């Protein structure tokens, strides 16, 4: 299998993951598109170096999350409240308003977290194990566990407040 073929295969397989990352780190559709393209570009650029590594997901999450951080607040102002409506989910024929509303609440909670917590909660929700989260983030496994418990507490207290 050629380089392009295997790369496009990986991206296609993970396009939903990239979409979710871009939704968490951006506030409007244009920024989200920019970030999506930048992530794919950076993944392609680093594809050769990945080939020698073991896990696709670790490489992909690391590059995607680092790119998201690098793209953050590049000197422009953006709205804090709008945008989510357009980026929550690509609408399908079986569009479910109730689900969309629940999803908006989920994103609102995640958007309130700081950049480190956003990355951790994303990896947790994606079902990554502490060991892999530790490899991606550079935090120790114990530290990951502690921080995730704190995030859970934080979310819980916010949810109770609301």
């Amino acid at each position: 299998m050629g380089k392009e073929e295997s790369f496009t295969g990986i991206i296609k397989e993970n396009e939903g993951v990239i979409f979710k990352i871009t939704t968490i780190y951006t506030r409007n559709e244009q920024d989200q598109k920019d970030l999506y393209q930048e992530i794919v570009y950076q993944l392609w650029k680093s594809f050769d170096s990945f080939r020698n590594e073991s896990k696709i997901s670790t490489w992909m999450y690391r590059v995607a999350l680092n790119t998201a951080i690098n793209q953050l607040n590049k000197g422009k102002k953006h709205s804090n409240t709008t945008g989510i409506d357009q980026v929550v989910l690509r609408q399908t024929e079986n569009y479910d308003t109730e689900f969309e509303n629940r999803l908006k609440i989920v994103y609102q909670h995640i958007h309130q977290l700081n950049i480190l917590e956003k990355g951790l909660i994303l990896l947790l929700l994606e079902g990554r194990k502490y060991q892999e989260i530790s490899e991606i983030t550079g935090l120790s496994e114990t530290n990951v566990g502690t921080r995730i418990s704190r995030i859970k507490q934080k979310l819980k207290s916010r949810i109770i407040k609301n």
Partner: protein
Amino acid sequence: MDLEEIQTVWSEMSDQLEQQKKLTNELIMKMTQERYSTKFDKITFYETIGAVICFLAAIYFLVNINKLDTWYLLACGIFTIAFLILLPVLTLGLLGRIKRMNIVKNSYKETIVGYTKAKTQLLLIQRVGIYLSFILVFTCLPVFSKIMNNKDLFLQTKIWLIYLPIMAIFLFFFSRWGYKCYKNITNSAENILKELET
């Protein structure tokens, strides 16, 4: 909605996204070959244009520095030239550092630390630049006037009587606003750094 429900919604969304796949091989490869104009590139572009203008002005003042025949005009000239060279160099250097971050090798934590530090320094330079630019307004005007028209503005007190109070009021409000913005951003940056160090 508790964490379990968040997880349920998340996995439901993931399933839906699985069914909505849109990317084609052509589109993916287009994204890899065509560097889209990102906001960061735009900032670097504008900063570079600004730097070129500053350097050209600095060269112009340097070439004509012999026309500044008093110690105070010479001091103003040196400050103006230093400002026009140093500030753009520092800003471009920091933007370059952000751009050169190794997003493949660095962990998420290292990227956050690197990014936050560079951002804080960039903001500091911008803030210092705002204050210094007020001094620049005072220094470059007499320098420019002397070089262009051979007039020593320091000897014309009337101009300064109008000019100084207006600039002082402007500086007072602008710096207060700038400090507030800077403080808010750096506080949150410091919190993240502190959190990562613990």
